[in-house]
């Protein structure tokens, strides 16, 4: 699996932003907050969260509203909303481009987009330094319905892979927190409980770091810059943050 490409704090007017590209999905996320909230949305003890998803073409449809609801509920559980009461955190996600084959794969396109939206939103929140209680990583798992060979699930498939494995029997999106809790699961299609469990374990493997490697010092791991090949999203996230920190601290080493 190729790690997603990210540029943090790309927009200079927003409080935090991230430009994200992975497998042909390209999204820009911007976060503003904590800012003043409209009186009718104000919550006395919590921050209000507003998520806007803009499609790559046209105006938002019920599909985008559905994605917004999913994102809203997932992000709410990782933002420490009680630390910034009576404020608004506004998240805007603009889909820039989708892979060409996206519509012809025959699977629910909102599920293939969801992990990317989650990553972009999380990275924008990191960039805006909104208080969070944990990290978030997400992945898509798809089961092709081949009757002849044993159906091995596809992990984070590209649109092209999905097209070739057509027809797809079921697709699953999982999102995990840094402490290996399942934050979100959306499944579509026909599948048995065992299949779901396998998919969930696969996703957990990719999203969360292996336990025996816990507390790896960041200095020696991941020295390859540019084309980062990582099997693990947690590691990838640390690398992104390390780059952000290095960029912010570069004045200390400058001559």
């Amino acid at each position, binding site marked *: 699996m190729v790690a997603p490409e990210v540029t*943090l*704090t790309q927009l200079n007017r927003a*409080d*935090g932003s991230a430009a994200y590209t992975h497998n042909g999905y390209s999204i820009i996320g911007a976060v*503003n*907050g*904590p*800012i*003043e909230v409209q009186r009718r949305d104000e919550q006395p003890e919590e921050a209000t969260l507003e998520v806007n998803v803009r499609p790559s073409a046209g105006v938002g449809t019920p599909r985008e509203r559905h994605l917004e609801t999913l994102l809203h509920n997932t992000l709410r559980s*990782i933002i*420490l909303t009680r*630390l*910034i*009461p*009576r*404020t608004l955190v506004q998240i805007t996600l603009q889909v820039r481009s989708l892979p060409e084959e996206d519509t012809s794969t025959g699977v629910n396109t909102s599920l293939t987009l969801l992990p990317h939206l989650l990553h972009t939103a999380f990275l924008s929140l*990191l*960039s*805006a*330094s*909104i*208080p*969070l*209680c*944990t*990290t978030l990583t997400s992945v898509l798992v798809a089961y092709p319905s081949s009757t002849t060979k044993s159906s091995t699930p596809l992990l984070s498939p590209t649109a092209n892979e999905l097209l070739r494995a057509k027809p797809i029997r079921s697709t699953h999106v999982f999102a995990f*927190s*840094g*402490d290996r809790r399942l934050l979100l699961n959306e499944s579509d299609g026909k599948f048995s409980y065992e299949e779901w469990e396998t998919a969930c374990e696969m996703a957990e493997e990719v999203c969360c770091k292996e336990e025996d490697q816990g507390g790896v010092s*960041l*200095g020696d791991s991941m020295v390859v810059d540019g084309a980062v090949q990582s099997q693990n999203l947690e590691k990838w*996230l*640390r690398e992104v*943050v*390390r780059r*952000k*920190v*290095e960029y*912010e*601290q*570069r*004045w*200390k*080493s*400058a*001559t």
Partner: protein
Amino acid sequence: MASALTVVLPGDVVAQDALPTGTGKKKTLTLGPGLRHIPPNTVTTTVAGTLVTDNRKNAALVEYNSGRYTPFAGDLVIATVNGSAAENFNCLLTPETPPAALPHLAFEGATKKTRPQLPPNSLVYCRVASAGKDQPPELTCVDPSTGKGEGLGPLKGGMLFKISLGMARRLLAPKSELALLDVVGAKVGFEITVGRNGLVHVDGGNVRTTLAVGRGIQEVDQKALGESGQRKLAADVLKSL
């Protein structure tokens, strides 16, 4: 320097031995921004950045340079007056945030008869008197013990420049020495006022100096110039004057 950084992600548990141990008088551990205490004795991070510990002050914090300014009591800020109410000026520290209150009487020498007249959009250099998540921030321009302004008050002339929060912290640090300001300041006179909320006010007496100095500071911030880079920039700035 860069090798000793401890990069943290939100939700990381800070190990007990990474925190400073209390020595001497200061026994209680102070947690700065970006850290959260979960009783009984777990400390976790809430933002991404580098963990900084200070053994002498027995304090730990996460340093980061992004996001919006959040007021803390004691910070020096440049506030923009938004309007005047019965007893307060409503001021903005950052755009689109709830207004901070600056009492009419919180100026040096202000009485009920002679209160300062500040039209909307005027700038005031002030200190955050109180801030917290449960009430809007309150500002003041006087030291409560002496009643003196001590450099705080309305800012006249000059121009406001936006800088990053990290740069503002750097400029306000007790031992901050920006080579650019030293070199340029030796040749031309100007006055800068740094607000913790990511703003710097420059008054150079004339438009040319003001712009040159302000843009110079912004360039040092954006390009993260070191000492030699700043000297080079300072020479360019002086040439343009």
